[in-house]
């Protein structure tokens, strides 16, 4: 039977929390099982939605085009990599001039360096140019989503339990991050 496939939610994560994330795993054992990244506040993400400012872009590909873009939110930087397997997204990156507000739907990806540090980046599914109002709305929404997760961190939800076990997060840091992001918006 054709299964009733459920689409993964696009989580809202600030760059700072995304950078702090390093627990990546598969749900299930076969090769098609989805890959997840668990963040310190307990978001188990397979897809994310980001709105930020493109500050730099560079074609780091040798043969084919392979774009690395830096997209900034009030808390830090997301690294976005788009190549031949993300043709639509790569085309947008190739065409836009920085700075520009971009909305990105993508998959989290992790890379382990030689010294064992885990770096996170985003593999875009689609990228679109948006206006400042959309960016502001994203900041507010992401602050709210982050606060909801922080408020649930002591619950017995399996993702919260696992996040606490792995990161032993000081959630006050993320509370302050969300608060500062909102403040920044209000003064600007």
């Amino acid at each position: 039977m054709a299964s009733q496939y459920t689409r993964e939610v696009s989580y809202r994560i600030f760059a700072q929390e995304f950078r702090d994330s390093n627990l990546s795993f598969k749900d299930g054992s076969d090769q098609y099982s989805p890959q997840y990244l668990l963040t310190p506040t307990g978001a188990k993400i397979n897809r994310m939605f980001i709105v930020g400012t493109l500050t730099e872009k560079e074609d780091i590909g040798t043969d084919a085009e392979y774009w690395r873009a830096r997209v900034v939110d009030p808390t830090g930087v997301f690294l976005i990599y788009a190549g031949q397997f993300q043709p639509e997204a790569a085309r947008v990156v190739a065409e836009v001039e920085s700075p520009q507000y971009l909305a990105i739907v993508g998959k989290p990806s992790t890379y382990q360096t030689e010294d064992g540090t885990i770096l996170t980046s985003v593999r875009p599914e689609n990228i679109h140019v948006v206006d400042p109002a959309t960016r502001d709305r994203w900041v507010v929404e992401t602050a709210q989503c982050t606060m909801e997760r922080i408020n649930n961190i002591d619950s017995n939800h399996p993702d919260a339990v696992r996040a606490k076990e792995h990161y032993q997060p000081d959630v006050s840091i993320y509370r302050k991050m969300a608060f500062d992001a909102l403040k920044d918006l209000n003064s600007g």
Partner: protein
Amino acid sequence: MIKDISKQIQERFNQKGYTIPDSEIETRLDKLINEFKVPAEEAHRSVVNFFLKEYNIPREDFFPAQGDTPTVQISDIDTDNKWVNIRAKVVQLWDSEHESIDQVGLVGDETGTIKFTKWTRADLPKLVEGKSYLFKNVVTDSYEERFSIKMNRTSQIEDINDDIIEVELVPTVEISDIDTDNKWVNVRAKVAQLWDSEHESIGQVGLIGDQTGTIKFTKWAKSELPALVEGKSYLLKNVVTDSYDGRFSIKMNKTSQIEEVNEDIEIGTTEVEFIGAMVDIQAGSGLIKRCPECNRALIKGVCGEHGKVEGVYDLRIKAVIDDGRSVQDSLLNREISERVTGITLDEAIHMATEALDQSVVIEKIKGEFVGKYYSVSGPKLDRYILVDTITPLGPIENSEIEAIIAQVEV
């Protein structure tokens, strides 16, 4: 398991006045089942036959004479492997799919209907659709929790001349009443949506609704039933309920029937609103072609039901809206799509003709809509909101931000 079967067998023989030691029955059963891996049912049979021979018991003596067999109503049949008599009318005869089956179909009485199978080897008279009979010594059976009766060599069939049996055919139910699977029902409903079939075994799939709600339906390709048309109302007879992941659906198979009804059944729905970012516009959006006969969207110019046809253009948007917590599929029909994009169907056709590519329309819509925030509202049908209003969200108010800051500070 062996103990149980052994006990059953012994009781049967006891009733007839023959005493057979437990141990003997158990030894034989154990050998068949454990040593020779014979299925329990077959072992049961084999042991009974063995002792009939061994003790020289006439078969007629042992197998239920009709006096013993209870006459039951169809709704009373709730166990398998029971000998019963029933008075019933032949409601439907189906095509036998195997030479070992002489006739197969549906019989019914005042309490319901049940499938019957008449074995070729039973050598019984031919049953005629619409006629009533007394079926003696038939045995009950079950398959995937559905009961049936089998007519074999010990069964007898007698005509009932007066057609007294008023068959309670399959009950006609409302959609909200469907709460068990594997039940045969009739449903009066309107086709709310046809979806794209994802498998060749599925003729049509979509959503039907009545006053009480909506439910998914699947019409198997093998059912050879007429095509359902979106927006039309039907009496769907003899459909089977099913469930998957706690959600119910109905299946239409070879024994189902479809009758169009004249009335326009109103679909009861709940109006919902959803606010979030549009994170994707799915394939099958923008300028599409539909089959002129059944209205389903063509895939590469081919209709799943009617093959290659001259399609009729339509405009629609299948948008995925997401608020970071849950995903909401949203469907914008031609009218709403035209209004929100400012592209009329004719303009869309023109764009596609200029570019020699139908996909320019979806690309243009994606470029304008994906990544931005919207509020959509409309009736919710299954996993879709059928959007009747879509509003882009403007700049967020400072007061709103302040209210949220106040919450965070606590």
